[in-house]
């Protein structure tokens, strides 16, 4: 076990960036924190600044207006940083892929480590994705 994995195993801090989502993925992320799923028992918590984060969680189609801010957030994140694309929109653009404001998907702009599909992904799916991500680090 490397030092990175040892450090991340019990304390994965997540910064959540909504890059043009319908709100639902974001709500399911918050749902993971509430008593039924309670990911804080694994040391996973949401933080207010990307400079504190180990994981950059991106949801939404990545609109043209958000692209520079997404790149800036990725540059500001301390290394190593894992990027997770959450939901059908972040993976492929989903139903919005023909829209004029669609500049994504996420992996067109920044390298992605884990993809969590679903519209929206269930909280169980999000937890499963994060667990697999820890195994991969």
């Amino acid at each position: 076990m490397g030092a990175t994995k040892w450090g991340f195993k019990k304390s994965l801090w997540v910064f959540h960036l909504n890059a043009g989502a319908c709100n639902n993925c974001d709500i399911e992320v918050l749902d993971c924190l509430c008593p039924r799923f309670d990911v804080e028992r694994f040391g996973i918590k949401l933080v207010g600044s990307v400079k504190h984060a180990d994981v950059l969680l991106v949801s939404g189609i990545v609109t043209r207006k958000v692209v520079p801010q997404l790149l800036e957030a990725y540059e500001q994140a301390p290394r190593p940083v894992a990027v997770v694309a959450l939901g059908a929109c972040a993976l492929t653009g989903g139903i919005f892929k023909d829209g004029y404001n669609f500049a994504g998907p996420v992996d067109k702009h920044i390298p992605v480590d884990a993809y969590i599909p679903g519209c929206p992904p269930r909280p169980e799916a999000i937890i499963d994705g994060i667990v697999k991500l820890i195994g991969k680090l």
Partner: protein
Amino acid sequence: MSTLIPIGPFHPVLEEPEYISLYVDGETVEDADIDLGRIHRGMELLAQEKTYDQDCFLVERICGICSASHSWAACRAMEDIAGIGPTDRARYLRTIVHELERLHSHMLWVGLGGHILGYWTVFMWGWKYREPVLDSLEAITGNRNHYAWYRPGGVRRDVADEVWPVVLKRMDEFAAQTEMLLHAILDDPVILGRLKGVGLLTKEDAIRYGTLGPTARGSGFDIDVRRDEPYGAYSEVDWDVIVRPEGDCLAVAAVRLLEMLESVKIIKQCIERLPGGPIANEVREIPRGEGVGHVEAPRGECFHFIRSNGTNMPERHKMRAPTFNNIPSYRPRVKGESISDAVLIFAIIDPCYSCTERMAVLGPDGRRALGSKDLIALSHAKTEELRKGS
């Protein structure tokens, strides 16, 4: 001398990206400006490039919380053109899902309100009590959110009879929990201190800014589509519109909390009186014509307009979500308040930006090239062009 304080665009207490500029003098907010547009996805144009059946799925994804409201409003607009209404069973089934959505939306807001106040117990409780509602929605429609449940003429799937006793039991538990939460919140001196008298919106301003839903009803502006122009099963069940005259943050919070109890009442009556029969009338085609559909979404009136040219795609699909009307009321609310209350006052309208986002055209230097007057002139020119064409 005023100082500018930026909030956002990716701020920890706000779920969605938006940029608020607060102009402050010392601790007092003098003025505010809001910059939106980061979640604009070109929904109206997309809707015009998809068929009516696909549109039902597309409009659900306008907003993750009001997905039933948007698809119901779009279906009502399509039914308005086709002249075919839903069946009796479909009307009741639609109403049940719509009210369950209101329950989970309001409970979500209560939790977020607690989160913004720094009151994490309220957040955890609210979201814990919200889960059984999502379970009920999953049992009825097959998904926690984005139900894919509404279609022109009725609903997509029938519900097994075994589901209803479980939902009724959950509703009883939910009502008891909401009652407890209601008293815990409205009798708590700390929460009262943070909410009472903060962010006043007078009834005149509520009408002048065109506010809708709980934001309007918290200021004594008695407006509710469910009662004013009944649709679904609302005229056949017994319920009340909650109105509070005070206009401060506490009044809006009280309206939302009390509305949840009314929603539970509606759901229970609908389940008891649920008629049998088919779940949908077949809508074979949408003829040429125009139709409107509006429903009372959890945040206020949600409005859809569709113009059909007789093909299987709409020629024009206009959508207006309630937050679009409610956001401007932030300015009169926040003037003269302290910075520490600014975010709370912003959250009191339960803003949902993904519904609201509009387009702004930018020039090569990145600044806004078209103001409201230019856009109105463009719109007039386009209308003139269409008139000449037809």
